[in-house]
């Protein structure tokens, strides 16, 4: 490859690209939308996953003891629960400590000086090994002697587990569909640009250009469209993250956003690579179909 040949090749790519600009913009726009949705989806899923893990890790069962239960009764119960393989840890919280913690939690939200008497019973805090079995452990604890009541975020846990599972499946389907759609649209766009250049292609074939040489400019264009589209999508995603995330943290303070840690560079490269691959594969097929016809 001497510089003249490279210059000719690039000028041909550029000439074709600008001549079919509207079609190229269509392809780029398609990639942008697809990759933005894909990226947004991946990001959301990762965030929800991280939040879910965080919440689930903190799930604990509060086992409230009857008023008449002595500290010895509490210790017996704690030992029995600890012996269960599904239980990770058991902490004894006497009523005085429970009140202290409650005052701590509610500080600034209500006037804690109003809490003069202690309404809390003695309690055990139980953490489980596997969050999915939290209700089993809760049922087991409820059956024990000296237990007045058992509380845990049952609904929240089950919903979170279900949501993250369903999201994972739906998401996979959506992503596949999106990529497929993008490939179809790009391949159609490239077919239009191939059609717009059928005279050049006919002459290239007539004078003995190799199939590779005829294909190459189209593949390059598919690549450019794919990468440009993905880059635009990435810009959209970064903007959205910078603009929305701070607001989200303020609006939904109970979500542990700090737990979400995404490797931005890998993420960006994955999206760019997907865009490029979609563009190249789509143009390869559409040119191939035209050349064989």
């Amino acid at each position, binding site marked *: 490859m001497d510089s*003249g040949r490279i210059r000719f090749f690039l000028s041909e790519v550029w000439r074709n690209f600008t001549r079919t600009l509207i079609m190229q913009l269509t392809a780029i726009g398609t990639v942008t939308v697809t990759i933005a949705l894909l990226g947004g989806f991946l990001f959301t899923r990762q965030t929800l996953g991280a939040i879910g893990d965080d919440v689930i890790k903190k799930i604990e069962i509060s086992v409230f003891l009857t008023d008449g239960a002595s500290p010895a009764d509490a210790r017996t119960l704690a030992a029995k629960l600890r012996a269960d393989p599904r239980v990770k840890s058991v902490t004894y919280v006497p009523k005085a400590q429970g009140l202290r913690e409650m005052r701590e939690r509610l500080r600034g939200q209500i006037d804690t000086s109003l809490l003069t008497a202690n309404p809390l019973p003695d309690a055990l805090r139980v953490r489980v090994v596997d969050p999915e079995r939290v209700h089993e452990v809760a049922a087991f604890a409820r059956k024990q002697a000296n237990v007045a009541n058992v509380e845990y975020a049952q609904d929240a846990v089950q919903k979170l587990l279900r949501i993250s599972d369903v999201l994972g499946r739906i998401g996979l389907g959506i992503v596949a569909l999106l990529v497929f759609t993008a490939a179809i649209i790009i391949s159609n766009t490239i077919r239009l640009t191939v059609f717009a250049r059928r*005279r050049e292609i006919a002459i290239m074939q007539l004078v*003995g250009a190799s199939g590779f040489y005829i294909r190459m400019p189209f593949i390059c264009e598919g690549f450019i469209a794919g990468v440009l589209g993905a880059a635009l999508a990435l810009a959209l995603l970064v903007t959205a993250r910078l603009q929305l995330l701070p607001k989200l943290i303020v609006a939904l303070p109970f979500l542990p956003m700090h737990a979400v840690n995404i490797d931005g560079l890998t993420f960006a490269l994955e999206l760019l690579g997907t865009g490029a691959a979609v563009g190249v594969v789509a143009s390869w097929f559409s040119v191939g179909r035209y050349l064989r016809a």
Partner: protein
Amino acid sequence: MISLRGVTLVYPNGTRALDAIDLEIAKGSFVFFVGHSGTGKSSLLRLLYREQVPSRGQVTVDAVRVDNLRRSKVPQLRRNVGVVFQDFKLLSDKTVWENVAFALQVTGARTRDVMRQVPRVLDLVGLAHKSRMFPSELSGGEQQRTAIARALVNNPKILLCDEPTGNLDPANTNEIMDLLHRINLKGTTVLIATHNALVVDRMRRRVIRLDDGKIVADEERGYYHAAVPASVALAGDAAEPGEAPKPIRSIINGLGANPLLSE
């Protein structure tokens, strides 16, 4: 140089374009293919650069079997066979120079070769001074000369011309035929399919007549109208196959023979 053995070409719609053709053409020949439209002249030329594959028979071009040539070998064949058409097939957004250079560049030629070959063929066709012009700024004859330069830039041994003067007036036609003659004198084998009787009769070269996909006459130093009475050949020329003969009045009008007869 070129040989066809028992070549039959049947199109998917059942049309028998060529029927058991046997033909030998020597290196350096200058050959006319004549006959009515649809008798297989263009189909025969298309076999030679593998735009078409015969249904049966062998086609050999410059010692290469073309009828069963692998797809990947086709570009190599095309670089050895230049092709010129009635409608020139130039790229309108490229200059004369770019149109000719294009044929070299897309085969991956080195820039050094492009810079040497393009001026050579533009000189040969007499268009060196118009190399920066676009096809729309050229006369028909100049456009065809550009197309010929493009066909020759890869130094092919064979030049195929399908109705090269079909769109040209008599002056441009003579100019193109003189050019093709000069190219032939330099050693290139030139094959021309034409309807132009004057061109054929003026050149007096080998004439191969096709009718209904068969070779019906093959003469060294032949004429366009061979043994057929001139009047019959003329009437036959005016009508496409399958078309009803034109009414005599329209033929006369077309000739502009008598102004009193036209409305």
